[in-house]
């Protein structure tokens, strides 16, 4: 990894603007439904979901419920799944009959999202499930399509897309790296 060359794709301002736009889109499509639930996928998706909730609260005056989900046990590619500790999932009051937006940082193969949708079933029958991601880098392996996208970033498979979040990484940025 020492030879890695990094290129910044989204700056802190880019990310802020994208989040604001996504917030508006979510509100439009859900008609400002007050029982909206944002479910962030561990770990960065959780923080992105919280920021979207903040943003929605600023825009619309109500704060959607934010839940957390670690769908690792539902994955079909467990070599990724078993690599690190499982994190708790928590969706206050469940999702029965409510519109849910799954929130994650990067959409790639789609396998995480498939797992997340299955894991979500344990929390009730959502009235609809949508997907919001900060970055869509392509290379889908399943028929999954995001409803809200911060930025489409076509990539090669050998490239690495890294989303940095202040809450975890100390700053906000989306960076493209390549190992050579």
């Amino acid at each position, binding site marked *: *990894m020492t030879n890695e060359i990094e290129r910044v794709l989204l700056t802190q301002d880019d990310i802020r603007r994208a989040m604001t736009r996504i917030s508006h889109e979510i509100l439009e499509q859900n008609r400002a439904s007050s029982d909206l639930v944002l479910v962030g*996928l*561990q*770990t*960065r*998706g959780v923080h992105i979901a919280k920021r979207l909730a903040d943003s929605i609260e600023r825009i619309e005056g109500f704060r959607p419920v934010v839940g957390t989900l*670690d769908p*690792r*046990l*539902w994955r079909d*590619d*467990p*070599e*990724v*799944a*078993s*690599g*690190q*500790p*499982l*994190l*708790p*999932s*928590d969706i206050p009051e469940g999702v029965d009959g409510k519109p849910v937006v799954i929130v*994650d*940082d*990067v*959409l*790639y*193969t789609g*396998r*995480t*999202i498939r797992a997340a949708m*299955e*894991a979500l079933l*344990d929390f009730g029958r959502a009235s609809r499930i949508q997907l919001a991601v900060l970055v869509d*880098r392509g*290379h889908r*392996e399943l028929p999954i399509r995001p409803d809200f996208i911060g930025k489409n970033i076509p990539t090669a*498979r*050998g490239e*690495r*897309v*890294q*989303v*940095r979040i202040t809450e*975890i*990484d100390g700053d906000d940025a989306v960076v493209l790296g390549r*190992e050579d």
Partner: protein
Amino acid sequence: MTNPTTAVGNNPAIETANGISDEGLVAPRQHLLDLDDLSAGEINDLLDSAEGMLEIAGRDNRKTPALRGKTIITMFFENSTRTRVSFEQAGKILGADVINVTASASSVSKGESLLNTVKTLQAMQIDALVVRHPHSGASYFISNHTDASVVNAGDGTHAHPTQSLLDLFTVRNHIGDMTGKKIAIVGDVLYSRVARSNILAFQKMGAEVTVSCPNTLIPDEWNLGSTLGDETGFGGLKLARNVDEAVDSADVVMALRIQQERQDAGHLPSLREYSDRWGINAQRMALANDGALLMHPGPMNEGVEISSEVAHGAQSVVEEQVRNGVAVRMAVLYTLCAPGKSTRIGNSESTSGDEA
């Protein structure tokens, strides 16, 4: 027990976010035989996972597909309903098929038969063997004769690593960082696999462990009133002169089951005298720190090593220990048996992955 370095190939920052240190490539662990070969980091990873597992185990619908298609066999050569059921439940919540084999050590009296039993099971393509056996080292022996992951559910008087993990988990949930905390273990140290594993485990987490028991129930080479040196393998362990000294200012008091056999073998004059001199009761708990936890690995002899009053009192976390047992064993089974773990090394580009 995890291999964090390549787990999420495109997103190394996650590792630090979760407090996982990057120590280079480590081969995935196949067995859990004791905690002595786990680093504090690995133990913390397991406990972190148990946190997530505890949430799942507490759901109304607690079935996950994580180990779907995996076969786990619990092989108990000693009776232990609570440990066996705990493993069984853990395996089932994770979606594995769990088969219970109970065999008395007498019907499998010779190692040849134990070997044959293991080889027979091995031929049925099992993924994990959870073994309880009255002989120390039995799970180590079995691990040399099977491709399955072996989990030591108690071997003789040697080790009981999942009990220690659940004890650590319980304590961590209450007092967080264990550095410098005082853990008092009172009971049969000589014959107790729980004592042995827990001494190593709590020391590994930075706690200061003191034991107290009759001089007949510690190894001959140990001396009451001393602190063990590193050459003993239990360096830093304090051997209290009496129970009050052990319990004094303790943050955790753990009473161990005392067996009737110890009296019969002459280790004790009587259980009554044991209760009088080493039993944990309200008076003795009062010597511990305010809010100290009272633990017992179960099953309890109430009135002998622990009084009913404190066993069911406010400081007792005995039931919590049992509840945590399932979550901890889920974390262990998942970490050892998750499909594909053997391909984890070097997978960074061949598999999908910047989705956390």
